[in-house]
């Protein structure tokens, strides 16, 4: 459906320095996929989206939509944006203030060169689109009189009214308040599924990405760090950046003593050895990082006997704070501060010695970035 073939668009800052943009983006989406590009601001996700839309021209690479090249650096092809037949929702919604709701939504049909629409057809399509986004009957209103959430829906209606094959969404929820955002998230996903449209979504919010996507690309400094399902990304992060960006995590540095993928031994500071999982068999002697999520660590008193199969580390509680559903601890293990989240039923005061235990499958061996 949408294929990016080694697409690069880099904004250099001086010599070889990265100031934004994307390098060698390479992926292929099946029809109907909800695809999210996730990363911190300035990572290049929006640049990639704008390259797909035709708002930016990549430096090199190929973009194919439905098998047709809409950009091909080598062949000198660049279909201008207004002929790509893509729907897009902008971060600022970009609702034209001088037009009514109806006129805003009807615009793509009115300017269409590929097809001439009759007034009746336009009427029907616009009302249909407004109905779909839950704004039936709002057509005659002035667009600027509506609330942020409603403008968001107009933008969506405008993006889908001409039945594009691809829908691009550039942080569409970032300007909404928290409750509205959750509602819109669910609705966006429902709409996308109903319309069967392929969607490319850009966000820096990991919750949005995890909740809505079929496939996520985590991007940092112009490089795609990992491409996979939300489960892949969360449970099997490819590197320290992904592990840290999606949810919270602790990274322990150590030396790999080798082993098969599901039984790697890593020696961390002070000769302590822990058993972990990795994506592949590990060679002995390499420096690695081990990612352990705070919610996967169980705390116990320092002298309590724990499950033999789990890893066990001894530390001292530095601080504890009550967050409602969990207690959040900072525990010092050796010279490393580790975050632990545990059930508030039992509380360890600062200064007390505790044992941290976690299952080997919760320790993910990651290459050092």
């Amino acid at each position, binding site marked *: 459906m949408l294929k990016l073939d080694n697409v690069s668009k880099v904004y250099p800052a001086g010599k070889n320095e990265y100031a934004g943009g994307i390098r060698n983006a390479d992926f292929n989406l099946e029809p109907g996929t909800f695809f999210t590009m996730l990363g911190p601001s300035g990572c290049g996700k929006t640049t990639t989206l704008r390259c797909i839309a035709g708002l930016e021209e990549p430096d090199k690479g190929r973009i194919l939509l439905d098998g047709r090249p809409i950009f091909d650096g080598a062949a000198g092809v660049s279909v201008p944006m207004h002929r790509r037949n893509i729907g897009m929702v902008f971060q600022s919604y970009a609702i034209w203030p001088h037009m009514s709701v109806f006129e805003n939504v009807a615009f793509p049909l009115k300017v269409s060169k590929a097809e001439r629409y009759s007034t009746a057809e336009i009427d029907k399509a616009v009302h249909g689109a407004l109905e779909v986004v839950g704004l039936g009957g709002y057509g005659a209103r002035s667009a600027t009189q509506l609330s942020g959430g409603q403008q968001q829906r107009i*933008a969506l209606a405008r993006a889908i009214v*001409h039945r594009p094959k691809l829908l691009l969404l550039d942080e569409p929820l970032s300007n909404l308040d928290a409750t509205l955002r959750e509602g819109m998230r669910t609705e966006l996903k429902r709409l996308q599924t109903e319309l069967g449209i392929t969607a490319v979504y850009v966000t820096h919010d990991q919750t949005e990405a995890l909740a809505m996507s079929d496939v996520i690309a985590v991007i940092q400094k112009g490089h795609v760090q990992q491409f996979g399902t939300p489960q892949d990304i969360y449970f099997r992060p490819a590197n320290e950046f992904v592990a840290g960006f999606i949810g919270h995590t602790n990274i322990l540095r150590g030396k790999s003593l080798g082993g098969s993928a599901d039984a790697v031994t890593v020696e961390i500071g002070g000769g302590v050895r822990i058993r972990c999982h990795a994506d592949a068999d590990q060679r002995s002697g390499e420096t690695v990082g081990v990612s352990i999520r705070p919610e996967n660590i169980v705390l116990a008193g320092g002298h309590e006997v724990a499950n033999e199969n789990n890893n066990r580390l001894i530390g001292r509680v530095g601080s504890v704070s009550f967050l409602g559903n969990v207690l959040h601890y900072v525990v010092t293990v050796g010279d490393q501060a580790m975050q632990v989240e545990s059930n508030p039923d039992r509380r360890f005061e600062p200064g007390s010695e505790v044992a941290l235990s976690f299952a080997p499958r919760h320790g993910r061996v990651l290459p050092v970035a």
Partner: protein
Amino acid sequence: MANSDTRFNSISTDTQMAQRKSRNPTLWMSALLGAILTILVLPAVAILIGRSVSITNPDASFGGFTLQHFARFLTTPDVLTSTYNSIVFATLSTVVALLFGGVQAWLVERSNMRLKSLAYLTTIISLGTPYILYVGAWLFLLGRAGPVNDVYRLLTGSRGVMIDVYSMSGMVLIEGFLWSPLVFLLLSSTFRVANADLEEAARMSGANIFQTIWAVSVKMAMPAILALALFVFIRAIEAFEVPAMVGMPGGVDVLTTDVYKSIKETIPPDLGYASAYSVVLLLVVGVLLYFYGRLAKNAGKYSSITGKSFRPRPFDLGSYRWIAEALVLFNFVLLLLLPLLALLWLALQPFMRAVRLSAFPAMSLDHFRVVFASEYYRELAMNTIVVGVVAATAAIILTFFVGWLSARRKPGGVLLDQLATAPLVFPGIVMGVAFLMVFLSIPLPIYGTIWALAITYTVRYLPYGLRYSYAGILQIHKELEEAAGVAGAGPLTMLRRIMAPLLSPALVSGWLFIFLIATKELAVAALLSGPNSQVVAVGMYDLWVNGQGGELAAFGLVWAAVMTCLAFLFYALTKNKA
């Protein structure tokens, strides 16, 4: 995907054609505008420089290169005198304008004084009134037989005059008065965005009113004030009305009147010398504008506007309030009421005479009758309106496209921006000289028609149009136009259906502004209008020179009334936007 890859070859030619067909509009637009602007702007510069270093034979053929025109600067002391006069004139009138306009701007914008509307009224009416009319009125007021000297003689019993208006000090006063409304307008916007908290913080720290105004209000506005001062200084160097009407009769020559005289009062016109003079003036203004650009960049340095909810609180002047009100009232009387009364007096009297009780019975509406009945005045007005409408429309249309190409960094945008800004360095009189020579040397019968004026005005006001459209476009969120592109609209459709409607307030303001100043313009018109292409400013100047003050006043009052209506419209539009 394998499937689609086999289809790839057959489709690629199709898309390549699509690309070629439709990326062109922007490039075509750039190229077309580039061609138009080059034809409009470059010949004037080229011919000016060319003529300044060449000899033109009596039969208009080329007679070789020379530096003799420039060499004359060294042999005649006139140039030094004129330059000196220009600088003194510009500096002092800037001071006068800043004092009158600046104090008033702060009081009106930031204090709790009453009578604020008087200040705006003065400003708006002065926007619509031709300079010549004002200058004429003040010349009458301050003249030998005028009421000011009358009162002086009455009080002192002397037979002399308090001020001789046809002198440098007269020029400075009148030019300063002319510019103070503009200073007021521009500085009031600076003071409006100043954060009241900062002034209140100074008061809370124990500063009194004057310490606060000096240490906070004025110091914070300093970058803007400096930029504005240089701007007024440049306009005063370029000024023509006051030097022509006050300076020339009084024997005080400045650079612009020197240029004018070498064309109008030398037979045959000394175009080489005028060109050399113009080149010097061009360089001076160019250098000054360069510094102005650097100052203007810093002008907003301390502007502290914070958000939409921002509402400045007025500054309580306490018991000093009446002084402020007296000051504004004085300004109103001096800048508006007295000139208007003087004009009314002149218009109602059969001939120019001093204000005497004995002259009241002689009042009549004869001059107004003549003005309304005369074909000549109707033609003046029509010509002026046609020229103003054509020039404002052409300049706004051109700068709409240039502004978009430049603001959105499209190919060629920077170059187009520079081309359209270039006319700024031309003082009116120099532009007049340049286009005079251009029109005389092309085979088209443009010289002497109103189209010569319309074309020259279009070029002259391109920079103003560009500022309006460029600033307007920058305020329009880029995603609004990108959304149109993604929705399937090409660049031209986008400009027509999204950009033009969204920009219309800025475009209308720009149009009105250009129309208002184009209909006042004297310097260009003085050189370019022929017997059949007279415009209001030139007509008024002739009336003044011929001593027909009565008709001048009557016609001027009618004309100014109409223009003031437009000025009100302009003001209302720009105010709503801010």
